[in-house]
């Protein structure tokens, strides 16, 4: 099976058959359905998909940040040989910030307005590593310097409102990396920033990843960002992974009609006067998923009744390249 292309031994974080359901008043919504991915030290995995595709929810489930109930999380999340979903709440809390770090989308709301920057940067270090006093302060200064904040010692006692959006996101990264976690999950970490700042943050994270050798899971809907930073890409649609591939293979030879649609929708420089390609229709209601292929209602290449009534499974089309279709849509023909 292709799942063993990279064996679990070399991956730091390995997510297996992750399923997240939410009990709602109208019924049970399966927001993340049988999602598997893994990431090795020093590697960057990008998870792309539109809003509501389940990419953020799967990240929160991995971190253990979903409120349960209403959420129900099933599957396995292996972090170096132990399944986090089987761990006690205390053990999970000890991994958060220490071994798993997370950066959130909106830097304007992810810092506590009442606490100083220094206090917030040193919170994790104090909590996990037990540093105190001047040692703690030195570490906070070091961290702020690491993420490129000028004159860090002077800014330690300032409050979040005195920082710009880009600077706040740097602070968030400093907080997430404070205890040098093995895996960093960046959930739309640059989406709320302007393009210049976005490039700086991406460059910064790349450099820190190289220095610390951590694995990065980059969640985004921006395919432009993905091309620049990812080693491998997982494309999610309606709670499922529909295609996964090394980044070059995905861009050169996308196999799923959804991925093809996404890449086709990218604006082309110099393409004046051409109308932007779109994928018509809307993602399905998680309470009423189509019985067959979930992309069937929007698919431009749907072939027969099998697509409509029978859910397709993942199959391998190239080295490390897997896709959830019945037919090879690049080569036109049944598998």
């Amino acid at each position, binding site marked *: 099976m292709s799942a063993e292309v990279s064996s679990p031994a070399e991956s730091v974080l390995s997510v297996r058959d992750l399923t997240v359901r939410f009990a709602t008043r109208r019924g049970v919504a399966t927001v993340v359905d049988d999602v598997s991915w893994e990431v090795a030290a020093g590697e960057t995995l990008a998870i792309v998909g539109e809003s509501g595709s389940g990419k953020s929810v799967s990240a929160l489930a991995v971190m253990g940040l979903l409120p349960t109930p209403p959420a129900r999380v099933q599957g396995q999340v292996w972090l170096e040989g132990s399944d986090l979903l089987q761990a006690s709440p205390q053990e999970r809390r000890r991994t958060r910030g220490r071994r798993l770090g997370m950066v959130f989308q909106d830097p304007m709301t992810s810092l*506590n307005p*009442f606490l100083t920057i220094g206090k917030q940067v040193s*919170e994790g270090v104090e909590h996990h590593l037990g540093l105190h006093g001047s040692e703690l302060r030195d570490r906070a200064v070091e961290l702020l310097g690491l993420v490129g904040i000028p004159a860090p010692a002077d800014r330690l006692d300032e409050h979040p409102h005195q920082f710009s959006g880009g600077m706040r996101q740097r602070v968030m990264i400093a907080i997430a990396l404070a205890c040098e976690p093995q895996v960093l999950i960046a959930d739309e970490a640059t989406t709320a920033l302007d393009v210049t700042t976005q490039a700086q943050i991406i460059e910064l994270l790349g450099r820190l990843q190289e220095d610390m050798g951590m694995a990065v899971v980059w969640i985004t809907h921006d395919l432009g960002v993905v091309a620049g930073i990812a080693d491998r890409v997982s494309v999610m649609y309606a709670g499922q992974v529909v295609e996964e591939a090394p980044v070059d293979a995905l861009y050169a030879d996308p196999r799923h009609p959804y991925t093809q649609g996404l890449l086709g929708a990218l604006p082309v420089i110099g393409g004046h006067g051409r109308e932007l390609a779109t994928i018509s229709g809307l993602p399905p209601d998680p309470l009423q998923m189509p019985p067959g292929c979930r992309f069937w209602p929007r698919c431009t290449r749907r072939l027969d009744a099998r697509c409509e009534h029978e859910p397709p499974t993942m199959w391998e089309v190239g080295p490390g390249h897997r896709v959830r279709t019945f037919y090879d849509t690049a080569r036109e023909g049944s598998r």
Partner: protein
Amino acid sequence: MSDQASSQAPEAPAAEQRFQTLRAVLANRLAVVGLLVLAALVVAALFGPQLAPYGINAIEVEDRFQSPSLDHLFGTDELGRDVFSRVLVAARVSLQVGAIAVGISLVAGVTLGLVAGFYGGRIDDVVMRVMDMLFAFPAILLAIAILAVLGPGLTNAMIAIGIVYTPIFARICRASVLSVREEVFVRAARSIGASDFRLLRLHILPNVLAPIIVQTSLSLAFAILSEAALSFLGLGVQPPQPSWGRMLFDGRGFIEQAWWMGVFPGLAIFVTVLAFNIVGDAMRDALDPKQRSVIESRGQS
């Protein structure tokens, strides 16, 4: 205008926001008067016995029922005791009861509200339904019922008043926690391994304090009023220790021959409660960004 104010207000830092709040309170002239009255009360509470021209239980039978004069500013009572001295000294009891009773409700209510709002679910249901039950009783009736169980006296009166005003703090605190707990920074703090206790203490409590501070000031007024009512009914401060409520009760029998015996303690209650309410209102206006923009625009128009 109001958009600007409301988008800027949450940005304001803790320290600077406090100064802004103070400035906004001081811009309200009525509030300044209220603060001065409260300051005078605190002085009376601290130094009452030293400031009082006569002993509170100095009985001068030949001087009884003296109307207000320069010798006896508020007149004398049926035993010839100086009413002014007794009103002055009783300020301590009133403020003490108010502060300790509100302290009890504050600690109990905020703790319950934090826990109920943060954990939700069954804990929330149980805590808030008990609070609703307490809330459903008329305040003074509940206090009397509690005193009937505990027995009359100053300490028990403080406990009773403290219990009676707990639900309001629990409600206000829970409501604020419900919105703050969904903030990204709470999730972010959780993502670096913060425990529930740490989240509550460091990230949620500071962000829900504003409405609680306002309620504290308003509750102090209610607590002092309740103490006066309980003492009037003989359930609070026991004679011969002076208290405004008790003096009101004593003056009741002589209202036709010595009106000053009831009027001055009554006025003391009235002024104190009014001062706390004015300051509380001013603080609410200052801490609420929407109200603040109204205050600022009022200055301009």
